[in-house]
């Protein structure tokens, strides 16, 4: 089978193996081959880089100043010489002639092979934005890139790293250690989203920000600009970030140009079989440039397995490559991040989550059929190797499941595998609650003195009352001390947490928490991203605590609030524009009539809230309907929201022979002041002009009944499932006082009621006397509440419809794609 256009060295009868690529996989393959049969092949390696074989993954420590280039060389000159390998470095192969079995290098060398091994690795992906070719814009792949970065860092200034994955963050870390002001742009909402879940991504972002880096998530690059050299990066949202250096680390693509040119079978990578043989039996390929069974790779562990399979095949002992799970660690000193396997959950998969806010730890194991299938560790990665080993071996963890999350030492510690026994074994002086410095002895004595529930323990000795990470330990102590007599505590928010609504709200404010992932981490949520009960509640609590600052999480809203319309049983929506105080005009009525006809709405109806409801609108048509209503001056009526619904009025003194005050005008003014506000539940107001109460003000959340001498203010009414007549809050003399009291009452309700608790059950729970004590005696306290309401309203009185009409969140309204099935089905 000899085929040798160029004469072989005299007397050498060995087959000639040419390796294209002097990188990690190419050289490792040769090492594996030498280990099996050092005499079998004559080896020549071509490398595009003018260097010997070095450890590419250690480029990050080189950049960070933790290693020198010499320390990351894997195989130096002596290795090539000692094994009789010819290295042609700094000279890339530019063509393969498979018929002649030759390769051609850029320098003009043509060389014949018996076997060819392609190990060209990957090319960095460059996002196609204007300015991508400016000097100062580089990638992070080889030693030359590191030298560029070091030179730029010497000059100082700002660096922008595009890409918040493993590579980007390692580049950012190195540059920041070298004194540059670093901004990381990441298009996704959380960092390293392919390796980390949202919770760990959030912790990582917080830690990097604490180290002085600026991290912008959801940042979409529009252009890189500069005259002769990069000067700034422009984002699609208009932000401009100055930059003396731009590092693009947004991903890699298998380097396949050479193979494709040579006519080999190429998909995303060079297609190989289990023995790393390409579509041409004389040509093999290994490393990041290959595609095996539809998969391409970007980490070294699988490449080592490929190299073994390749060497086995080349020495006639074929074994075959089998893909295995991989794990990742971020190489940034002081930040321990580990992830392995599949952590996307799915069916039958259960999460075991441990969060320890005081030590900055988050651990999550995904267990399926008693086996670990995925792991994400942040802050404490000591057990990463152990979990990864369990994962790869597929060992059953049934026996150690309860203690698994605490790590190897705890779970396999024989006698202490039972967490209850471990707690029982603790000494009385062992500290259980780190936040409040409470020992086991103190907790046990507090239980002995009558604290028979988690809540009473929290109230008496403060154990687990702060961050809550010791809740499990306190519960175990209760069980150990009392057996079955433990009293169930008040209801927790949902199954994701051991805290109740009030605890969560209090801690959000006390600890200044700013985002849903932060709350979940600090309060030890037991699920990775909550559930449909807690997410909307947390979103509301944060919105209420941080007016103007918190960015609403659309995915934590019920559909109606996300679509700003009411979903109907057939999947269409109903649209209710606001009619201030129940007043309307020919212009508004005409616009509504036009919409009904234009969009073929099957029904239009007067609601129980004194306005018109248009039914049967398709999700896609909502923005167009709103545009038409906006054009006539109408805004969203929030008939869908946990927010102010309507202000019902009666005709009042302007027309009615019994009317005592201008109830219609006051209703309009109140609606203008209170619309748009998000609340724990829906909120209804009515103003009646006299005690005949035609607006039914005494079954509203806030009701005003006008009398000759002023205004009676009523609260906590409900006309719904369980009718409740209002309580009289107080009586005031002027309209201004009535409006201030209304604002203060709403704010108290917003700040203190539990999510999905209307004013009626709230007042039944806390008592009318409490509400009066907060609103009546202390004039300043009332004014403060009202002022906080007015402040938060300054951010919430934009019509959500208008924003959508202008194009915001367009994706909610349009299908991604459409298909028209054609005849070929039959």
């Amino acid at each position, binding site marked *: 089978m000899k085929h040798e256009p160029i004469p072989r060295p005299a007397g050498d009868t060995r087959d000639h193996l040419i390796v294209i690529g002097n990188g990690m996989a190419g050289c490792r393959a040769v090492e594996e081959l030498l280990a099996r049969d050092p005499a079998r092949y004559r080896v020549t390696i071509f490398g595009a880089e003018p260097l010997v074989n070095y450890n590419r993954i250690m480029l990050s420590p080189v950049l960070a100043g933790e290693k020198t280039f010499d320390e990351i060389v894997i195989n130096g000159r002596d290795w090539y010489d000692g094994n009789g390998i010819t290295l042609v470095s700094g000279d890339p192969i530019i063509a393969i002639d498979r018929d002649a079995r030759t390769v051609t290098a850029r320098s003009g060398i043509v060389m014949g092979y018996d076997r060819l091994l392609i190990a060209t690795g990957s090319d960095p992906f460059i996002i196609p934005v204007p300015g991508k070719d400016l000097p100062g814009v580089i990638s992070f792949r080889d030693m030359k890139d590191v030298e560029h970065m070091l030179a730029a860092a010497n000059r100082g200034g700002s660096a922008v790293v595009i890409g918040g994955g493993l590579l980007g963050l390692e580049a950012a870390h190195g540059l920041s250690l070298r004194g540059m002001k670093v901004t990381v742009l990441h298009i996704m909402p959380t960092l390293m989203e392919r390796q980390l879940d949202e919770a760990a991504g959030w912790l990582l972002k917080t830690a990097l920000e604490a180290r002085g880096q600026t991290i912008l998530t959801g940042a979409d690059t529009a252009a890189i600009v500069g005259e002769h050299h990069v000067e700034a990066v422009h984002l699609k949202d208009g932000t401009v970030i100055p930059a003396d250096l731009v590092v693009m680390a947004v991903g890699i693509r298998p380097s396949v140009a050479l193979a494709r040119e040579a006519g080999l079978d190429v998909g995303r990578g060079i297609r190989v079989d289990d023995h790393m043989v390409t579509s041409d039996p004389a040509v093999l390929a290994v490393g990041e440039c290959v595609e095996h069974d539809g998969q391409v790779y970007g980490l070294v562990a699988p490449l080592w397995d490929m190299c073994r399979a390749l060497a086995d095949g080349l020495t006639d002992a074929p074994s075959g490559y089998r893909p295995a799970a991989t794990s990742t660690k971020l190489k940034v000193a002081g930040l321990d991040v580990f992830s392995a396997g599949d952590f996307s959950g799915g069916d039958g998969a259960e999460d075991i989550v441990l969060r320890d806010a005081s030590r900055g730890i988050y651990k999550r194991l995904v267990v399926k059929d008693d086996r670990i299938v995925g792991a994400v560790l942040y802050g404490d990665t000591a057990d990463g190797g152990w979990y990864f080993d369990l994962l790869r071996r597929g060992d059953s963890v049934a026996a150690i499941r309860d203690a698994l999350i605490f790590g190897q030492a705890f779970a396999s510690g024989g006698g202490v595998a039972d967490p209850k026994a471990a707690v029982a074994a603790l000494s009385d002086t062992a500290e259980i609650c780190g936040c409040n410095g409470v020992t086991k002895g103190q907790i046990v004595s507090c239980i002995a003195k009558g604290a028979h529930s988690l809540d009473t323990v929290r109230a008496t000795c403060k154990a687990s009352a702060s961050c809550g990470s010791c809740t499990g330990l306190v519960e175990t102590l209760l069980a150990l001390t009392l057996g079955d007599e433990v009293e169930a505590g008040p209801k927790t928010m949902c199954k994701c947490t051991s805290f109740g609504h009030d605890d969560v709200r209090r801690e959000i404010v006390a600890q200044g928490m700013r985002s849903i992932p932060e709350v979940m981490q600090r309060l030890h949520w037991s699920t990775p991203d909550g559930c449909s009960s807690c997410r909307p509640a947390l979103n509301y609590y944060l919105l209420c605590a941080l007016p103007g600052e918190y960015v609403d999480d659309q995915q934590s809203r019920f559909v109606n609030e996300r679509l700003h319309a009411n979903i109907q049983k057939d999947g269409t929506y109903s649209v209710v524009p606001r009619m201030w105080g129940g007043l309307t005009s020919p212009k508004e009525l005409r616009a509504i009539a036009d919409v009904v006809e234009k969009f073929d709405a099957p029904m239009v109806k007067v609601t129980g809230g004194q306005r018109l409801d248009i039914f049967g609108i398709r999700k896609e048509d909502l923005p167009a309907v709103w545009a038409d209503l906006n054009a006539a001056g109408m805004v969203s009526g929030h008939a869908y929201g946990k927010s102010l619904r309507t202000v019902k009025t009666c005709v009042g003194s302007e027309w009615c022979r019994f009317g005592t005050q201008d109830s219609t005008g006051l209703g309009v003014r109140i609606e203008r002041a209170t619309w748009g506000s998000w609340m724990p539940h829906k909120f209804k107001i009515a103003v009646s002009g006299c005690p005949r109460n035609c607006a039914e003000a005494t079954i509203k959340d806030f009701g005003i009944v006008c009398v000759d001498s002023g205004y009676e203010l009523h609260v906590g009414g409900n006309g719904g499932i369980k009718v409740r007549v209002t309580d009289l809050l107080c009586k005031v003399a002027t309209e201004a006082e009535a409006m201030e009291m209304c604002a203060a009452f709403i704010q108290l309700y917003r700040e203190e009621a539990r999510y999905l608790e209307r004013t009626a059950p709230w007042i039944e729970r806390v008592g009318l006397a409490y509400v009066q004590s907060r609103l009546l005696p202390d004039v300043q306290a009332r004014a403060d509440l009202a002022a906080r309401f007015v402040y938060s309203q300054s951010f919430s009185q934009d019509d959500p419809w208008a924003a959508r009409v202008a194009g915001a969140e367009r994706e909610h309204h349009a299908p991604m794609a459409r*298909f028209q099935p054609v005849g070929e089905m039959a």
Partner: protein
Amino acid sequence: MIGEWLDIGWADEIPVRGSRTVRVEGGDDIAVFRTGEGKVFALLDRCPHKHGRLSQGIVHGGAVACPLHNWRISLSTGEALGEDKGCTPVVPVKVSGGRVLICRASTLKAAA
């Protein structure tokens, strides 16, 4: 020949912990979801309970809560979770080079 997969767009057009729909003329829509971890799933956009639009629900973990009566439906099997019983047809989906592909045969079945 028409391939067995239909390309419907980029994965990042689907909001994280959200969904988009694919309109199939003459049949039910298909709901395509992206979870917090970026995994993509597709189901018929029809709750096994009373045909709520699952695409409009809240996505959490590997499930979606139906917007009409809050049943939780598994994104990977379409089965109702917890006490509830019922199943929504799953549409095989894969992501290749950032593009989302859904199974042609299942998509057309939705219209049949």
